[in-house]
């Protein structure tokens, strides 16, 4: 099963010439780029693809031009091999606006977004999971496309390799995993870090075919990819193709590549250079003649010259570029009053309705998560939705937080709105790479060409008197810290429903955090359609003495404190920001200008927290109105499991009352 027998077939001459042309474009570009890096004409360094051209060129020639591809830090070959856009690649290396990513990505993110390339993902192993997202998108849209992951032998030792291959296998996704085995994970020899001989030996563990091909032979690669593509397109699932190849240079242009590779080894591989060898083959086989091939070569040379001179003469990007394009234009809810009879329902029902209504509205919308089918997830949010929308849209996943989160994000990059449910926010630790390095960066780093309509729904917070330190955290500040993510933390059923609908319609990644102690709390929710704009705080209670900002489960605590303090004659103004990013500074600042005092009540540990961030921005905006230092109420220990200890540590009404007394000097 490790090696699939290849059936030789006749490859048309125009395809052979096409493969040669793609290799030539890549090689010419990379050689020129090396000179330019060395001459200081390009900034810093790049990871060159020279030597491995046969893999990209033959793979891309064997699939359709609109099939999804994902790439790595060594991605010039895939981007150029796909669309042939030398200027887009060269200008990107140079950090100019004419680059693929408007200069915001650079060498490691070179990606031809206009030609179905989902991105270059330089955190090793991410291209594998992101391609699963492409396969998921193809299946959801039923557009007949396949998705191809390029990655190296080094990436096959990341957990993402395991999660991605397993996900694609169990869902029979149309995905090709193309491992370019150049023998070295950066500087480390592959045989030193793998007990099996070949990466493809691992394929049987996932129940999929694994193939080893000569990566220096374009025809071998072409043949293997063509067969795997047919298999994928016809619903038979993914294939792992391992192409044995070699990089001419070092890991990057800063590395000569000689410190850990022998000269003999390098010379041996160079004898197998696919470009002169394939040129000779084309002439011998009669697929082309000297005149045609020379003409092609001079065309490529002049195309490269044009790209270089346009790059060098292009002005640097305008500085305003640096601050533009963090988010795609936001979804703006229509300012219509919610219609229909208000009903008293709990948060679980409100969330369930929001997801169901959005699935009805947008047939592309999918949701992934553990156990979300039968019981509707650990808390029952999606109960009944599997029956209603089927397993192609309500997708139950293995316990693979990184894999399915990345798959959801990859699908979103391919235009499929997706919800990933991470059962507990504590598990998001395993899924930070796709959220932080892919979803948050994509719109900005693609120069606005990509958007990421994904919602990371997750549960967070303590108070269950059972879950303890690793199932009770409040990690909102981590996400609010990352430019490019929106963070939503509702406090009541009405907000949960209206804000989740907005989150789903957002073209930007949203981290939607649901507090476990709020799932069963009830509130009035209208039967009719409504959604709530982001960045609009809710005034929960007006008061003249102290402004209190609280969100999620701290809102009821703040309101209880306000009730108690009112008996002392102290009037709290309680504001629920509802969304932390974007944060409604204006509403809070306006309030603080009236009261002169602000206390933030949050469940999260205080250091470097979102409460501390509120203190920063409100302090700047209202300094001249402050009567007392801004206080942030919170803890700095994990939440202990003991119900007694947890109740003592968990911030709430009494902590807030003490803090309010403090700022008033009572």
């Amino acid at each position, binding site marked *: 099963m490790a090696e699939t027998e290849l059936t030789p077939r006749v490859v048309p001459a125009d395809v052979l010439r096409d493969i040669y042309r793609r290799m030539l474009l890549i090689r010419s570009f990379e050689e020129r780029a090396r000179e330019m890096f060395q001459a200081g004409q390009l900034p810093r360094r790049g990871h060159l693809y020279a030597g491995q051209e046969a893999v990209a060129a033959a793979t891309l020639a064997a699939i359709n031009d609109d099939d999804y591809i994902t790439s790595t830090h060594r991605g010039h070959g895939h981007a150029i091999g796909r669309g042939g856009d030398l200027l887009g690649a060269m200008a990107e290396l140079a950090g100019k606006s004419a680059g693929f990513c408007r200069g915001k990505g650079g060498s490691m993110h070179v990606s031809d977004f206009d030609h179905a390339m989902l991105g270059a993902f330089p955190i090793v192993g991410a291209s594998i999971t992101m391609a699963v997202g492409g396969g998921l998108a193809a299946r959801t849209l039923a557009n007949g496309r396949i998705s191809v992951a390029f990655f190296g032998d080094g990436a096959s030792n990341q957990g993402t390799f395991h999660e991605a291959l397993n996900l694609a296998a169990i869902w029979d996704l149309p995905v090709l995993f193309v491992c370019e085995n150049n023998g070295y994970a950066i500087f480390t020899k592959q045989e030193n870090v793998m007990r099996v001989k070949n990466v493809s030996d691992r394929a049987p563990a996932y129940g999929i075919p694994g193939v080893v091909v000569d990566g220096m032979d374009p025809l071998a690669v072409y043949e293997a990819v063509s067969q795997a593509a047919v298999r994928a397109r016809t619903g038979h699932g993914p294939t792992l193709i391992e192409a044995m190849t070699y990089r001419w240079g070092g890991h990057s242009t800063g590395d000569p590549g000689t410190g850990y590779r022998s000269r003999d080894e390098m010379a041996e591989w160079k004898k197998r250079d696919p470009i002169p060898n394939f040129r000779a083959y084309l002439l011998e086989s009669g697929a082309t003649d000297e005149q045609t091939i020379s003409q092609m070569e001079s065309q490529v040379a002049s195309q490269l010259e044009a790209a270089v001179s346009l790059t060098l003469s292009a002005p640097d990007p305008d500085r305003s570029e640096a601050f533009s394009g963090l988010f795609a234009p936001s979804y703006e809810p229509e300012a219509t009053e919610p219609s229909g009879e208000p009903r008293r329902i709990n948060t679980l029902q409100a969330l369930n309705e929001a997801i169901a209504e959005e699935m009805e509205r947008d047939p592309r919308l999918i949701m992934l998560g553990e156990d979300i089918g039968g019981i509707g997830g650990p808390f029952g949010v999606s109960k009944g939705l599997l029956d209603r929308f089927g397993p192609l849209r309500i997708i139950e996943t293995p316990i693979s937080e990184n894999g399915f989160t990345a798959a959801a994000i990859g699908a979103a990059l391919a235009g499929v709105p997706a919800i990933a449910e991470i059962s507990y926010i504590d598990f998001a630790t395993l899924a930070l790479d796709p959220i932080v390095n892919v979803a948050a960066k994509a719109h900005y780093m693609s120069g606005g060409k990509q958007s990421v309509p994904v919602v990371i729904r997750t549960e967070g917070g303590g108070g269950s008197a059972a879950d303890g330190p690793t199932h009770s955290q409040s990690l909102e500040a981590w996400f609010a810290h990352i430019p490019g993510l929106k963070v939503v933390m509702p406090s009541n059923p009405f907000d949960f429903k209206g804000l989740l609908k907005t989150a789903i319609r957002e073209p930007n990644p949203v981290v939607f955090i649901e507090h476990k102690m709020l799932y069963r709390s009830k509130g009035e929710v209208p039967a009719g359609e409504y959604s709530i704009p982001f960045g609009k705080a809710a005034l929960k209670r007006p008061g003249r003495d102290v402004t209190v900002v609280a969100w999620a489960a701290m809102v009821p605590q703040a309101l209880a404190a306000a009730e108690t303090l009112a008996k002392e*004659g102290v009037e709290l103004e309680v504001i629920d920001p509802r969304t932390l990013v974007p944060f409604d500074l204006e509403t809070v600042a306006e309030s603080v200008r009236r009261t*002169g005092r602000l206390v933030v009540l949050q469940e999260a540990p205080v250091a470097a927290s979102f409460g501390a961030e509120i203190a920063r921005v409100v302090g700047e905006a209202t*300094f*001249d*109105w*402050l*009567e*007392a230092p801004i206080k942030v109420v919170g803890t700095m220990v994990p939440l202990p499991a003991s119900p007694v200890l947890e109740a003592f540590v968990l911030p709430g009404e009494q902590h807030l009352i003490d803090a309010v007394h*403090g*700022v*008033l*000097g*009572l």
Partner: protein
Amino acid sequence: MLRKMIMPTLGLDMESALIQQWLKAEGDTVAKDEPVVLVETDKATTEIVAPTDGVLKQILRRDGTTVPVTDTIAYIETAEAGDREPEAAPPLNGGTGASPHPGGPDSSTEKLAPSTPESEHSGLRASPAARHEARELGVDLSMVEGTGPGGRIQGNDVRGFSERMAPAPSATPTATPTHAESLAPMPMAPPLPTASVEGRLVPMSRKRRITAERMSLSARTVARLTMDMGVDATEMIRLRQRLQPAYEARGARLTHNDLLIKVVAVALVDHPYLNARWSDEGIVLLQQINIGMAVAVQDGLVVPVIHDAHRKRLDEVSAEASRLVARAREEKLSMEEITGGTFTITNLGMYGVESFTPIVNPPEAAILGVGAMADRPVGCDGEIVLRPTMTLSLSFDHRIVDGAPAAQFLQRVKKLLEEPYLLL
């Protein structure tokens, strides 16, 4: 809310004092800085003034009792909204029980012995809101009592202060309010019945109000004594003429005032009691010498300050004085530029005024008035000759400094002006 009134430390070696006589009875209205009680120490009999406006709520230590310093002797109920201050009856044993004023201990330590004139401002606890309001309303924060945690001045303290200083809104526009009437909280005898006189009410600007307030404070509290001394200005004029071309070459200008500032600052180095401040705890001899110059501006008076004038060269003093006067006229002076003064010079000579009795700028110890410079007949070697002269009028707070040392200071100033080469 209730504020406590303590037995102040009136001298460094004072440990207690005898309450001789309460000047006010329980229930009487008292104004800030109004004498409330006479106390007798081993050195003198002194009035103790009210720390705040309000009503003398309760006297804890009756006439004839000896009270250690810092013990509470009475409670004054202020007009401040008391909703955050417990209304509990004050402890009858006086001061050893729980303090009804949460900031009591804090604020009293803060007031002790400022080491530099700046510390009174920088050590002052005021919320950003209070500082903002004070800038807006033109209120000197050092005059405002704080009611916040630790005695922190809050926005409402500043607004309340400003409102109390404001003219009563019920004033009839046809009446001409007397100066005293406009300063509502000041203690005053019941106004005599006045015949109705036609007039026009000019509402007070903030600047007018502040000027009025500070002048009243001075008149009410400072034991003022003024002494005059004539000065021969011949050498001073000559020095200025000799130096002027060099100044003009740099686009600058040297004035007699610049020389006066420099001379006064140098003289103060050896006369620390003229460079001092009155405080309830004692006399604070100041390390810095910061000379204020009274500058008349539209509808009031501002006193920009030349800091560390004794350490600055004459050309530096001159450049700074001319810059400050220009900024004063443009009404652009910053808070730093009008605070921290330790001694003030006021010159009315340009109006032909021969001499006058300046009002000390509290809490400073003294102020020097400068009269008109003119050729006047003087006796010289048995003959009457014309000499340019002027009269210096030193007003000082007799509480801080006595006549003889003040006269010695004035003599020193005269000497330096008549022989300015001594400055070298």
